[in-house]
Every structure is written in structure tokens, then in C-alpha cells.
């Protein structure tokens, strides 16, 4: 249950400790329709991520424990989950940064239908993303070479290009929990990425889409999304900028 540091580590050695994961499981094929908690106590090393601990639980204890993952270093967006009540990527969360004295609770992200254990149905999330026209629309004639863009123009939307579509932000949003129709922060972030790109000509259309009753105005500026973003995107700020553009741009 508790994490005890085994022995004082030699200089430069990584310490080993036991850690308990308390995982929210849902396995309708074998355990019926009720979700339940299961605890796994495993041995971890000082630099292990939560993903390493989940792998140990799956590989050494119970192979049926299910979660998505791929890159293991925070760039593919597969493994957003609720870790001690906060949305984070398992592969970017170091065990030593959580309180290893207490069991670490791990749950699927909220607001999307749970399919099995930590795996949720991402389709509603991607559907919102697709709706905001997440692609460059340019009406001008393509030059034979690249279009020019100044470093400042490029910088204007840099922050929102970092999105990896992990859904940590959207599934941390209380508005999204109660209203699954709300576009959610990630879709707005991706709209922002194009609205503020000097090469794009469809800003007005995107603003119109987001002016919908399920659009930006549902945002209550709660900042959960900004806190949840594993890429450090200032999500709330991006949403504010989109709101402002709606007021100031005559589209």
C-alpha cells in the first residue's frame, strides 16, 4: 500500500520503491456492467513513468488490463487518463512526482464513453475536431515556391500548433462533462491554429461555426484545460482570443 524507499541508493543510482496503483476497471465481457477498482502493487525505479507502472501491472500481473499507448514520451497523445483526479499523460507523469506514499488512482478520462478499462470511445472527440475545418483553406493562387510568412506571423499561432489531440483538455472541462455537444477546448484550439494563420482564408467560416450555441460561448473560463494540457498550450487564452476575434472581426 505504502511506498517505502527500499534502501538508500548508492551515489548516482536510481532508488527502487514499491508503489500501489488503484485502477478503475471496466471489463463488461468478463465482470459485468459495473466498473470496479483493482489495486496492483509493483516495484518501480526512480525514473519510471506511470506508463511503466501500468506496463508492469499488465505484463507481470494481469494481461487483461487495457489502455492505449504508443510513443511513451508525450508526443502521440494516446494515453491521457485521470491520475489522482487530474488529466495527464501516463507517459509524461513520473511516479516520483506523485505522492508515492498513497495509492495512485488511475481512471479513464471523463465525458467520453468508456469501452474497456482506461480506453474510451474517442470518436465524439474527433467528430468535433473535424467540424471546425481543421485544415488550411487558401483561395489565393498557389505560388510555385512557398508562400511567404514572416517570423512574427508564424509566431502568432505557434502555441496552438502543438496540440497532439490527446483530449486531456476537453475531458477535463466541466462544461463538456454536462454537455457532450459542446465543441470542447481541443476543437477550439485547432480552430485557433488556422484562424490566426496569415495564410488562411476561412477564419470567418470557422468563427461562424464556433459562434453556435455549442461553441466558444459555452466556455466558462475555468482553466481546467490549460492546467491539463501536457503540451503546455495556453488553452484558455486561445479560447479567449477566438472569442475576441468573434467580436472584433466582421465576418
Amino acid at each position, binding site marked *: 500500500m505504502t511506498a517505502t524507499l527500499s534502501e538508500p541508493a*548508492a551515489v*548516482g*543510482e536510481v532508488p527502487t520503491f514499491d508503489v500501489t496503483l488503484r485502477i478503475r476497471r471496466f*471489463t*463488461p*465481457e*468478463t465482470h459485468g456492467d459495473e466498473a470496479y477498482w483493482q489495486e496492483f502493487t509493483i516495484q518501480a525505479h526512480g*525514473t519510471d513513468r506511470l506508463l511503466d507502472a501500468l506496463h508492469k501491472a499488465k*505484463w*507481470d500481473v*494481469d*494481461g*487483461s488490463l*487495457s*489502455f*492505449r*499507448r*504508443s*510513443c*511513451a*514520451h*508525450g*508526443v*502521440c*497523445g*494516446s494515453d491521457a487518463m485521470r491520475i489522482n483526479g487530474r488529466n495527464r499523460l501516463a507517459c*509524461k507523469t*513520473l511516479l516520483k512526482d506523485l505522492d508515492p506514499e498513497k495509492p495512485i488512482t488511475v481512471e479513464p478520462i471523463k465525458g467520453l464513453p468508456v*469501452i*474497456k*478499462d482506461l*480506453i474510451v470511445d*474517442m470518436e465524439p472527440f474527433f467528430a468535433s475536431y*473535424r467540424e471546425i*475545418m*481543421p*485544415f*488550411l483553406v*487558401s483561395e489565393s493562387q*498557389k505560388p510555385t*515556391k*512557398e*508562400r*511567404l*510568412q*514572416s*517570423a512574427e*506571423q*508564424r509566431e502568432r*499561432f*505557434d502555441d496552438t*500548433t*502543438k*496540440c*497532439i*489531440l490527446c483530449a486531456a483538455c476537453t475531458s477535463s472541462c466541466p462544461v463538456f462533462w454536462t454537455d457532450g455537444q459542446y465543441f470542447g477546448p481541443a476543437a477550439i484550439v485547432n480552430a485557433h491554429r*488556422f484562424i490566426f*494563420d496569415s*495564410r*488562411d482564408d476561412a477564419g470567418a467560416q470557422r468563427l461562424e461555426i464556433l459562434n453556435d450555441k455549442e461553441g466558444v460561448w459555452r466556455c466558462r473560463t475555468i482553466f481546467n484545460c490549460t492546467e491539463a494540457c501536457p503540451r503546455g498550450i495556453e488553452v484558455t487564452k486561445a479560447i479567449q482570443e477566438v472569442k475576441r476575434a468573434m467580436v472584433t472581426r466582421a465576418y
Partner: protein
Amino acid sequence: MQIHQYDVVIVGAGGAGMRAALESSSRVRTAVISKLYPTRSHTGAAQGGMCAALANVEEDNWEWHTFDTVKGGDYLVDQDAAEIMAKEAIQAVIDLEHMGLPFNRTPEGKIDQRRFGGHTAEHGKAPVRRACYAADRTGHMILQTLYQQCVARDVEFFNEFYVLDVLLDTDLRDGTVADGEEVAVSGVVAYDLATGETHVFQAKSVVFATGGAGRIFKTTSNAHTLTGDGMALALRAGLPLEDMEFFQFHPTGLAGLGILLSEAARGEGAILRNSEGERFMERYAPTIKDLAPRDMVARAMANEVREGRGCGPHKDYVLLDLTHLEPAHIDAKLPDITEFARTYLGVEPYTEPVPVYPTAHYAMGGIPTDIDARALRNNTDVVHGLFAAGETACVSVHGANRLGTNSLLDINVFGKRAGIAAAAYAATAEFVPLPESPADAVVEQLEAIRSRASGERVAELRAALQQTMDANAQVFRTNESLTQALADVKALQARYADVHVQDKSRQFNLDLLEAVELGFLLDLAEVVVTGALAREESRGGHFREDFPSRDDEKFMRHTMAYRHGDTVTLDYKPVVVTRYEPMERKY
């Protein structure tokens, strides 16, 4: 079992697969099948850049780029293919910009370019700025941009579908079909992760774009899902794999973890140092030093460690020093990789050097193709309708060692070519009839594993495989070490016959798929080691301590490995030489 019919089926939704899909889907009915959501593909992890001789910041041209690619690949590159890639690079970058990719810009607003290992002006005189980039997230931007375009064009995806078999009209598995006979593809069999159902896709053209196989090694920059599926499926179907013994070990993986720190760090001025603080690359590559090609730098690092000049409590890594760079410069050009150092090692790159050691990074080998991405079944015959592109293919533009930034280029150039060629073929070809009960083999294989009540554990076998590959088939290889690796792999294959999984369910049974992926890894490891044992020379990423020099007389030829029955047999294929006669590779 469900049956679908498409003109073109593309397997894989990374950079190569989606670039192909953009071409193919605008011409004929196309489906993309991917075991991951497209944006989860490992192209998104690529950091440093994509090269093209745009000459935006200094003089450059595609001929220099071709030369660098050939020399960097230690003359095992097919020079006709390299020339095509270097020429078409320029349009490939412009295509991406037109699709919306947010490249970093020069003060004039053009695409900015930076230095990368092995890319030079005037045939090796000095480093040249050829890599186009978007901070250190170039791959992320490419993957996002291509996916965005796929959304714009309504490309049809089957996500979280694993392709587990490729269907041909002729059985090639015992190696008795004569050269010159016509062989064609009829489709693929896929497994839907969400439901556990099998789906058969009948297609006139099939494009494999399934990426790399880094997970045969323990220390790797590759995703958990990079298990070489396409290569292994081709091998099992009786097709050859080319040059698999050539694996690239990238010099700068985070020590102990393998997570990559892009060569862009050294391109921006970072320096490798040993325990004495010495800039040791000056001894190994006096002209371009830290920007020598990866195989040389990786070996130099391993050598420093071997000779006792490693750092840390076990003296088992060297240091990448960025401390002389301005923090603002680091933030602007290398934000992600410095963040990796902070997150995973707790090291602050502004003020502390970062512990690094070589990490398995890139498979130079793969499914042999011609310059139109058509897959070969021997040295000359194509399989009609079958194509391959990206890391899973071997054209061969990377030869014995890939230059940095040439892979993001490869996936764009040959992904595009594959999409065009696959659609053109499908436009005139007829569907080839499916075999009777096309999914039976896959279903049997899965059910055998799923229903086995007890047996060998996937994780244990995989760890043993990765352990022996790191110990015996990494940067330094010998007859002895490779013989050991081969014996270990064979023993693990035997144990694998008894593999079992704990998860018996249908939905999202990742336990089961990991078992299948392990089978791919074992098959590929055998090919890598067998090729490496036979290649008694050192060239590019393949270094034999017992044969430390290159032997053009005997080995300037591609390895073609086949698996007929249970044994891997080797054949060879000549290298295409057009302009450049092999020279000694000095930097």
C-alpha cells in the same frame, strides 16, 4: 467476417501512408487501414527536420544532396533512387507548405533551413543548411498537416484495425515459383481491435506503409507499436527483405531511456564530451566533428565508453553539452527535446550537460521496391498491385546509413509516388479473386494464442529478445556475438510456439495483439542477425569488429533475405551506381 472492396488499400497512416492516401484518394476509391489513430503514428515523434536543397539561406543544389546521401549511405545506396529523392525533395517541401505546414521562417519570410549531420556543400567541403524545420517538432507538423488534408478530402480510414495477412494469388512461401512468373496481390486481412472481428479487404492495389521495427532492440527511440508488421507479413508471404542488417543507432538517446534528442541539437551547436570534458569527435571526424554521420558518431561514443572515458557512476554514457548556447536560442529552436531532458532525467540543459547514449532508431532495410514503390519478389519481378513506402520499404535511398532528415523526405517523396502508382495501376487492373476462406489463417493463429490455457508469457520473451539484440547486435558486432544472438532468437522462437495471453476477451484485446507483434519482432530479428553474420565487412550502421573495413569487392551489394519454410536464406542484389564511384568515407 466482413468483406470490403476498394481500388486501393493503404496499410498505415503515418507520413508515408497519408501522403500516399492524398494522391490515391483523389483518383480512385481508397481506404486507409491503421492500427493506430493516424495522428498517433510515430512520424509525429520526428524532431529535427526534412531536407531539400531549396538554397533559401545559402548556396545548395540537389546534386550535392544526392552525393551526400550516397556517401552517407556508405555507397550501398541505389543512386538512381537517391537522385530522384533529392530532386523531388524541393517540390515535396513546397507541397507541405502549400498544405499549411507551419515551417520556421527566415527574416525574408521564406522557409528557414539548418544544418544536419552529413549534409554538405560541394561534396563534403563544409556543412550546409539544408534541413527545413518547424522548431524540433517537424514530424508532428508533417503528421498533423497530412491528417488535416485527409480530413479536408474526406479520406476513408479504418482506425485501430491491424492488418495481419497479405493475400497473393500465388503461394510464394516455399520459394519454388520461377522468376518471371506473374504474381498479383488480391487484398489484406485485418483485425478490428474494438470488436475482435476479422475483415477482408479486397483491393487491386495494396500499399504497405507500416513504419519501422525498432522494438527488436531494448534501447530505442521507436514507439512500442513499431514492431515491423509490414516487413514481417511480406517475409511470411515469401517476399524478400532487403538490407535488414543495417539498423541505425542514433547517437543521442537519453541515457538509459532511449528517448531521442534530435541531431538538430548538434546542428544548432551542441557538443559531445567525454568524462575528461574533451570534444572527442575532433579525433574521429576532424572536418565536421559532431556533425559526422550517425554511424560514426554512435561508434565514437561507444568507443569512448569502452575505453573508460564514459561519464556517470557506471561510466556508461557521454554528455551532450548545450550550456554554451543562449537559453532563448534553445527555447526557440529546441524546446521539446530540452523539455524531454528535464522531464525524464531531471537535467536542466541550460546549465547542465545531458547524459546520452546511442539508441536504436531507424531500419534502413525493408520491403524491396523500385522507384515507383512497387514491391519486388526477387531481384527483378514486381508483385502486381503491391507497393511499399516509408520506413517499411527499402528503395534503397539510405543504403547502409540514413542521413538525418532524409526519412521525412523519403516518406513524402516515395509516399506520393506510391499513391500515384497504386492508383494508376488500380485504374486499369481487375480485382484478383480472393482465395477461398481468406481469413482462416489469421483466425486460426489468433485463436491458438487466445485459447491456450497456459504457456510462455509475451513480456518475458520480448524482454529476452531485446536484451540479446542490445547485447549482441548493436553498435559493435562480431561473429561470436551474432552467433549468440541467432541462437537466442531461435530459442525464443521455439518458446514462442507456446505463447499464451491472459486476456481472453474480444474487445480491445491488446494482450493478444502484443503477442502477435512479438511474433513479427522475432521473425525480423532473425533476418537482421542472419544478414549481419553473413556480411563480413563493416559498412555504415553495420560494424563488425572482426571485419573492420568495407569490402566493396565482396559486399557492395544488397542483401535479399527470404524465409522459405523455417529457414532464412540469403541472396544478393547489385547496387545501382550512376555517377559516384565508391570512395573512402572521411569527414
